[in-house]
């Protein structure tokens, strides 16, 4: 049974919810009512065919792309391919590492192409694409990795004058598999798909190879058609000493700094067992309570 894409306004009457298969998007546009209405209409129209387009070339997108391989043709798929291209030479990565960010970008592009918006965000399962007119800003809140005891541990103000338009988070507890043990790695980058790919790469680098308390299985043993195939993915992390946590974070931080130097990311926050490393982050101290609700993006 193929269920139809679900599109509805959330009960607050401001945010639009889009769902199709494994895609869950929450978005919000700021501007005049007629402009936001046009933007929501454009988002919905673009959204309904996104999953079918992606699935049409899923087999390509689940393989590492090389110069010889068949190139994807869909606009979302191309965004994915572009985002992972910088990593292809140095590590195993498939375009699927950027799928959520690419979908967010695509929906945002449809909205800003159809309407004049002051600000907008498209949040695809935690991977967020942003639009900011000159002079506008978003305040982002970062919460702890545990939804059951969520606490904001910092905020970042994103100004239109700065290049950041994408936010993504990766970690082994998420819906996607991770090769590393990071609880969460949040990345700010110029675009959402770039952020998505980079978060995956950095989270994979937060690791303790061969550690007996890290439980790993071949990805295909859990999900036979996953793009990670024979790679070992993290399914559980037992007790770690503070020193081990530090060692794992060191690996991630080193990777993050490299990407920062290359301009692939603008900032990253690495989170493991209550320890946090900040790389290039314009992070403010934990004073979020003062911000107006509609100016805050809470990011899990």
């Amino acid at each position: 049974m193929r269920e139809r894409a679900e599109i509805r306004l959330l009960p607050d009457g401001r945010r639009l919810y889009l769902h199709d298969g494994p895609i869950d998007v929450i978005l919000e546009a700021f501007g005049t009512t007629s402009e936001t209405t046009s933007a929501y209409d454009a988002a919905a129209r673009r959204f309904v065919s996104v999953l079918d387009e992606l699935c049409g070339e899923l087999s390509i997108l689940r393989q590492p792309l090389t110069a010889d391989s068949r190139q994807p043709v869909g606009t979302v798929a191309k965004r994915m391919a572009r985002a992972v291209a910088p990593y292809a030479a140095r590590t195993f990565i498939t375009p699927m590492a950027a799928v959520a960010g690419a979908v967010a970008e695509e929906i945002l592009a449809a909205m800003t192409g159809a309407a004049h918006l002051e600000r907008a965000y498209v949040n695809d399962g935690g991977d967020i694409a942003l639009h900011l007119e000159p002079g506008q800003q978003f305040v982002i809140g970062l919460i702890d990795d545990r939804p059951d005891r969520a606490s904001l541990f910092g905020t970042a103000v994103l100004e239109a004058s700065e290049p950041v338009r994408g936010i993504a988070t990766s970690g082994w507890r998420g819906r996607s598999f991770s090769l590393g043990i990071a609880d969460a790695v949040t990345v700010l980058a110029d675009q959402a798909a770039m952020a998505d790919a980079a978060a995956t790469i950095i989270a994979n680098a937060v690791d303790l190879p061969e550690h007996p308390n890290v439980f790993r299985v071949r990805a295909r043993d859990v999900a036979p058609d996953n793009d990670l195939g024979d790679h070992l993915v993290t399914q559980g992390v037992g007790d770690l000493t503070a020193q081990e946590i530090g060692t794992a974070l060191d690996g991630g931080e080193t990777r993050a700094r490299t990407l920062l130097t290359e301009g692939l990311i603008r900032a990253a926050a690495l989170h493991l067992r209550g320890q946090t490393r900040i790389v290039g982050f314009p992070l403010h101290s934990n004073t979020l309570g003062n911000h107006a609700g509609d100016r805050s993006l809470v990011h899990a």
Partner: protein
Amino acid sequence: MPDDDAIRCDACPVLCYIKPGRLGACDRYGNRDGQLVRVDPHVVLDRALARGASVVPFLEREQEWDGNIVSAPKTFVTAIGAGTTYPDYKPAPFIISSEVEGVDMVTVVTEGIFSYCGVKVKIDTDRHLGPECNLVRAQGEAVGHVTTGEYGSQMLSLGGVRHLTGGSRREGTVTCDTLLNLCNGKAVELKVDEGAAVVVQAGKPPIIDDVLEERMRVGCGSATIGMFAKQWYGKVDEVVVVDDHITGVLSEHQAGKLLGVPETGIKIKGRRSTPGRYFQVAEPGTAWGGTNIEDPLAILQPFKAKIAWPGLRLLMVSTTGEHHAYFELDEALRPVQKDLPTTLSESVARIKENCEPALCTVLFMGGAGGSLRAGVTENPVRLTHSVRDALTRVTCGGAPVYIWPGGGITFMVDVSRMPENAFGYVPTPALVAPIEFTLRLQDYADLGGYMDHVRALASIMPEEGHRHVSARPDNPWPLFPAKTPESQS
């Protein structure tokens, strides 16, 4: 490639291979013991004596032995939320066995995707909704038409494969939404071309051009004369029951003649059918008796001077008693409206009293295609034969269905007898409706059933993800065998 024990989910185009105990990429569908299941609540009907709480947590149900040596299972698994395996020839999502009165019964539970489906809507009203055959629209799209009227009711036929798939994409989508909402008991606004706007909701009175319809007519105008002639006799000289279909006139009507009601010289506009019965006294509308008239005198011509007399008492009333007026003729034999005498107000009230509450009723009609039947048996046509032979009982969300004679398994079900939100949709567009086939285990084996997929009722519970609802006392319990074993020998 994929392992043997993984199943392929076809709920969305990702088509995940899912290992046992795992969920797909969406976290909504999973592999439970080799079966594709939705994690969304699955509706299970609990046979409760009263229709109290509509949702019963499983563990709070009465678990103790009730004293019967062989007790019928008090739980029936409906297909709502069961998922479907369309379009593959593979076993239905749930095939469940339970013992009923010593006979092993099997219920094959699936959700069918019905491209061939629609609803028949009966709207209890005399008001004219629009000419027969005219299109019925929802959100501006044609979703069906006005079909032949029935007693006290206007009938709409909505959906069908042509509106679902034969028109524009939007027409199909709107048709699907309209059917879905009607079937799930939600209110839908419909507009008839050259007719009325009507808000339809199963089990609720219709709202026609913003007016809530309260009562269904007691009968046609002529029948009303027949029913109330005795009560009027002696209290009034003439009664006209205004009705768009058949307007009745007491003094000319057979009932009046039998009582010896004298001629009054009344002359009615319209076409006389038989004595005292007139067709087409006005245009159809939403006023008196389903006509377009606001002033009942508009259907009268001048009284015949040779027969009528000054002071003649005339009652005009509609078929529901909702409209009524009382007149007396003046010296020039012109009707002059007066207050209704108390001796007559009783009969008008009685007409109202005999009118049942006006309701909209919605019957879902769908045909079970070959692939759905293939989920029940390896030889789909045998299921059709088994249903024909009454060995297999078909239910829809646990509610009884009427199986249309002839080929296929085309059935109708009253959506108000089904659990809430029993229907879904797919983007084809088509409706998803639950359908259960219940038959004896032996009969199931005989017709080529998937015997290795049969699971005991107890094995699917207690499990999370099941929604327990009380069975409706007015529905027959689905598990009672359609035929006793003796009657088949």
